[in-house]
């Protein structure tokens, strides 16, 4: 469970203060699929970065699976990211010098799994996204949709509790975007909590919950009723 209470995030540039998040409150339950929408500069990416422990917050309370994130040092945050959070980015963010196998291997290395376990997880997750036969290919040899699938396989390899996706379909054509979205839905149905930032309202509506961020705070909760109950 992810709980944010009165989270503020202020950026200081010279004498100018920018309030990226302003008393931001949100609770994401186990198994949720939450889409986050909002205009550019509204603070949704800042929220995702803080949720993914990639950025610190200025004040407020943030607990992830019951742990107070504010108390963690760099090592603790890294460990929590590795164990509990998977990321999918708009730009795929694969390491171009490494083949698919080695790309998926990266978070597993930091977890400290042995070689056998790493291989099992890599093969299983590449199989899951339909790219097991291309393990030795470099990212540049794949299409955008395929690269995003590799990124998803990498995110899932550590079996995270939360999958954070920042515009996961932003660089894909509509057909590929549909494919990725379907994959995310499958993953969610298998129990992984997903928080997805998107500009695409049509895709946002496919989530169980949609929230809108405006001026650094959640302006409207549960726009769409729980899909599961529909």
């Amino acid at each position: 469970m992810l709980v944010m209470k009165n989270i503020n995030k202020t950026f200081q540039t010279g004498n100018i203060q920018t309030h990226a998040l302003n008393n931001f409150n949100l609770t994401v339950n186990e198994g949720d699929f939450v889409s986050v929408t909002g205009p550019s500069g509204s603070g949704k990416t800042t929220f995702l970065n803080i949720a993914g422990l990639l950025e610190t917050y200025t004040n407020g309370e943030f607990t992830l699976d019951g742990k107070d994130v504010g108390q963690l040092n760099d090592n603790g945050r890294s460990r929590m990211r590795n164990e509990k959070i998977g990321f999918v980015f708009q730009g795929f963010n694969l390491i171009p010098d490494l083949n698919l196998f080695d790309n998926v291997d990266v978070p597993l290395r930091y977890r400290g799994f042995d070689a056998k376990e790493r291989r099992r997880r890599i093969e299983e997750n590449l199989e899951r996204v339909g790219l097991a036969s291309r393990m030795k290919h470099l990212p540049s040899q794949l299409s955008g949709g395929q690269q995003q699938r590799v990124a998803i396989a990498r995110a899932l390899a550590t079996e995270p509790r939360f999958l954070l996706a920042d515009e996961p379909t932003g660089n894909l054509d509509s057909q590929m975007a549909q494919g990725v979205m379907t994959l995310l839905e499958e993953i969610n149905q298998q129990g992984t909590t997903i928080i997805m930032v998107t500009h695409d309202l049509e895709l946002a509506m496919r989530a169980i919950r949609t929230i809108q961020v405006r001026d650094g705070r959640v302006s409207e909760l549960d726009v769409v009723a729980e899909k599961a109950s529909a």
Partner: protein
Amino acid sequence: MFNYYLRLARISILKHWGLSLLMILAIGLGIGATMTTVTVNYLMSANPIPHKSEQLYYVQLDSWDVNDPFDEGQNPPDQLTYTDSTNLMKAKKAFRQNVQAQAYAVIEPNDPEILPMIVNARANSADFFAMFDVPFIYGNAWSNQADDNKELVVVLNKETNEKIFGGKNSVGESIRIDGNVFQVVGVIDHWQPKPRFYDISTGAFNETEDIFVPFNLIAEEKMRMSGNTNCWKPTGDGFEAFLASECIWTQFWVELKTEQDKDDYLNFLNAYVEEQKQYGRFLRPMDNRLSTVTQWLEVQEVVADDARIMMTMSFMFLIVCLLNTVGLLLAKFLGKAPEIGLRQALGASKSTLFFQYIIEAGCIGFAGGLLGLFFAFWGLIGIETLYGDYMQNLATLDLNMMALAIAISFFATIIAGIYPTWRACKVQPSHQLKSQ
């Protein structure tokens, strides 16, 4: 993880091979220049006989002109007169003693097929071999009796034995030297102390001699001396007069086992000089000295000042090369900021990433060290070519120097890599991930 980081370093180095090559080249040049000068200094300042250098003493007595001191009064003369050397030898007050001088001779081989040859010779006492741990292949040193009896005996070095006797055991064989028939009593193995401490007056880095004969044969005119001779007053006519003169041309070494032995020997020297003063000699204030091997090398300034300056300058050059490497590493690692941000997102802590990139810097340093060894090898050949014989025994890289080159290169590059790595690890992952 170490092997994983090594693999990532290899991938990264090959991927950015141009930049990596520049860094390796910069480090290689710096290490090459540094190791060239460090090697020369190391060999110049090495202790050539470490296990007994504190028991071997070079003897100096100030027999010089009362009105015009030797070495501007800073040091007594660097050699002894024949009179003093032979008197000290006769006294036999040390555990071992050796009087010596450089000489030369013509060997006429028995085999008419082999042409006569001029050889460098050392005229020395029997104790020379035991004092300086000279290794023998065949036979032994001659006896003290042979010294006293002025016997015509010779010890050959390995190369001379090869030339004249084809390398066989020649002990007991006869050999004609300067028209006299000598008996071979021993053949020594290759022996080249660096520096050649036992006679600095004729070159601290010259090769050891081809043959060794009893010192007393010089007085018998059966061996011709060839070392440095310094005189401060006329010698008179004839060789007898020269031997009795105040000219200095002999070197005198003693082996003393304890500090007490040293004190006793110094007292003996002082008493000897007091005695000689009664004969009108030693008019200068008493300044008798016993120097250990390392002290003697220091006094004689075996490590030249210009070699030290060159070494300092080469280290400064290495620093410049490393500063260039810092810049190049900074460019390379900051170029990897998106990957660093991503790795952080995937669970790498800053310390983990720091370790990963420091290993990459270390790999570049290791490769630079290997290239530096190659440059140092050629640098030493260049120095040997430039300075000729003086440097011929110094222009070699031994295992210690090779290990030092790699170690300096590795650790210097790691130090150079600290700042770029630290900067790279400071990137804000969220910024990098969004900008990809």
